[in-house]
C-alpha cells in the first residue's frame, strides 16, 4: 500500500515540477545557452548510437518480414511494413529508450548528486529556482532534439531495411521497389503520429529523470538507486504510454 502511495506521490511531484519549470518559461532567453548545451549532449552525442541501432532494427525488421512474406508472396510490401513500423512505432520508442538509458540516467545521477551534496539547497538560498536552472533547459532541449533524433532514426532504419532487401538473394527486392512500396502507404499524418509519440516520450523520460534526481536523499548509495529507479520508471512509462497514445491516434 505504501509503495502505491509513494508511486502516486512521485507522479504528483513530477507534475508540480513540470508546472513550476514552465512557470519559468518567460526567462527562457536567459537559459538558451544551457538549453543548447543539454541539446548538444543529449542529441548530437546520441546520434551514433541512434544511427547504429536504427540501422539494425530496420535491417532485422526487413529480414524477418522477408522470411515470413516470402511464403505468402508478399515481398513487395516489405517497404511498407518497415516504413510504417519504423515511423509510427519503433523509431520513437527506440529513441526514447536510448534517451532514458543514456541521457536520463546521467541527468538523474547529476541532479541526485547535486541534491545530496547540498548544491540544490545552495540554489534555493540564493533564490535561484532549481526548476529554472536545472529542469527547464533540459525539458526544452529534449522537446527540440526528440523530433530530430526520431526522424534521423526512422530514415536510417529505412535504409537498413533497403540494404537487407537488396543484399539477401532470398528476399531480392530492389531498392526502387522497396522505396516505391514504402512511399505508397506512407503519409505525413503517419510521420506526425510518430513525432507526437517521440515528443511525449522524451518529455516524460526527462521529467522522470529530473524528478527522481531532485527527490534523492541520502548518500552515494541512494544516487545509484535513483539512477536505476529513473531508468526503470522511464522504460515502464514509455511502454504504457505507447499503448494509450497508439490507441488515441488510431
Amino acid at each position: 500500500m505504501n509503495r502505491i502511495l509513494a508511486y502516486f506521490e512521485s507522479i504528483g511531484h513530477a507534475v508540480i515540477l513540470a508546472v513550476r519549470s514552465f512557470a519559468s518559461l518567460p526567462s527562457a532567453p536567459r537559459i538558451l545557452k544551457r538549453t543548447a548545451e543539454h541539446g548538444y549532449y543529449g542529441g548530437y552525442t546520441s546520434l551514433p548510437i541512434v544511427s547504429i541501432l536504427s540501422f539494425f532494427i530496420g535491417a532485422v525488421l526487413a529480414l524477418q518480414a522477408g522470411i515470413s512474406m516470402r511464403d505468402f508472396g508478399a515481398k513487395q510490401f516489405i517497404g511498407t511494413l518497415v516504413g510504417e513500423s519504423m515511423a509510427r512505432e519503433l523509431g520513437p520508442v527506440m529513441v526514447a529508450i536510448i534517451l532514458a538509458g543514456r541521457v536520463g540516467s546521467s541527468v538523474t545521477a547529476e541532479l541526485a548528486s547535486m541534491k545530496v551534496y547540498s548544491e540544490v539547497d545552495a540554489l534555493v538560498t540564493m533564490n535561484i529556482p532549481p526548476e529554472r536552472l536545472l529542469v527547464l533547459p533540459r525539458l526544452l532541449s529534449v522537446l527540440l532534439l526528440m523530433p530530430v533524433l526520431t526522424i534521423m532514426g526512422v530514415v536510417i532504419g529505412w535504409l537498413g531495411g533497403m540494404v537487407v532487401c537488396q543484399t539477401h538473394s532470398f528476399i531480392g527486392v530492389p531498392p526502387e521497389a522497396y522505396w516505391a512500396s514504402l512511399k505508397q502507404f506512407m503519409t505525413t499524418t503517419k510521420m506526425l503520429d510518430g513525432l507526437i509519440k517521440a515528443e511525449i516520450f522524451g518529455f516524460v523520460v526527462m521529467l522522470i529523470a529530473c524528478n527522481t534526481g531532485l527527490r534523492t536523499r541520502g548518500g552515494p548509495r541512494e544516487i545509484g538507486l535513483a539512477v536505476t529507479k529513473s531508468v526503470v520508471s522511464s522504460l515502464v512509462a514509455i511502454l504504457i504510454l505507447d499503448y494509450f497514445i497508439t490507441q488515441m491516434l488510431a
Partner: protein
Amino acid sequence: MSAAKLKTKPSAERQDRSPVGIEVSSLSKGYDHQQVLFDINLAIKPGEIFTIMGPSGSGKSVLLRQIAGLESPDTGKVRINGLDPAEPATRDRFALALVFQAGALFNSLTVYDNLALYPMEHHICPKSEIRDRVMHALQILSIENTFNKLPAELSGGMKKRVAIARALVMEPQLILYDEPTSELDPVMSATIAEIIATLKEQFTVTSIVVSHDRDLALTVSDRVAILRQGRLLAVDTPAAIRSTSDPVIRDFLNPQIDLRNPRFKQLEASNE
C-alpha cells in the same frame, strides 16, 4: 591577512534596507519519529553575530536549515523581520546567504562562475562589475588564483573559502555559517573570524554561526546559544557563557583529556 582589506560597499538600494532580525518561536522538528529540536525560542537582533554551539548531533545544523527556510518546522515558526524565510520573496528581499559546511559549490562550474552565478541570475549589476566583485571577494579570502579552477581541484579548506567568497559576492543582509572554520588551519580560521566581525561592522549584516570552534564563538559573537540534545541550554554573552557555573556547559567548553579514563584501560587490556 587583515580584515581591513574588506572594501566591498553595499549597493545603494541595499543601504536603504531595514536591518534583519530573526525570531524563532516554539520550534520543534523531527525526522522519521526521531525528535531533533524541542521547543526552541530565540530572538536574534539585527546586526548581531549569534553563534549556536553544541555537541555533534545536538541539532545545530537542523536549526540552521529551519532559519534558512530550507525546511519547515513541525511546529512553531521562524520569521525574518516578520517574514517567512521559506518564501522566495523573503529571500529576495534580504539576500540570505548560507555557507554550507562542505561548501556546496557547483561542481560543473569554475570558481569564478560559482561566485558570479548569483549576480548574473539576479541581474544586480553589469558584467564588468560582477567581475570586479568576484575578484575582490576571492582576494579577500586569498584565493584569487583559483578563479578558473573547478571545485574538484580544490582542497576542503579552499572549498570552504570559496563558499564564503560566494556569500560575500551576494552582499547579503543575513549570513548563515555552518561550521565555517572546520577543515581550516588556525591562521585561516582567524581570518574567517575577522571577516565575520568585519562584515558586521561595515554592513548591516546579521550573522548566525553554527560552530564547534570555541575560540571563534567566544571571540567574535555578540551572543552564544548552547544547544544540547535538541534543547537550548543557555543563550547569553560570551563573557557570561565563559563564567557559567552550569557543569554541562563548562564541560563542553573546557573538555578535559583524561588518559587514565577507565575506557582506555579497557582498550589496553583488550589489546594485550
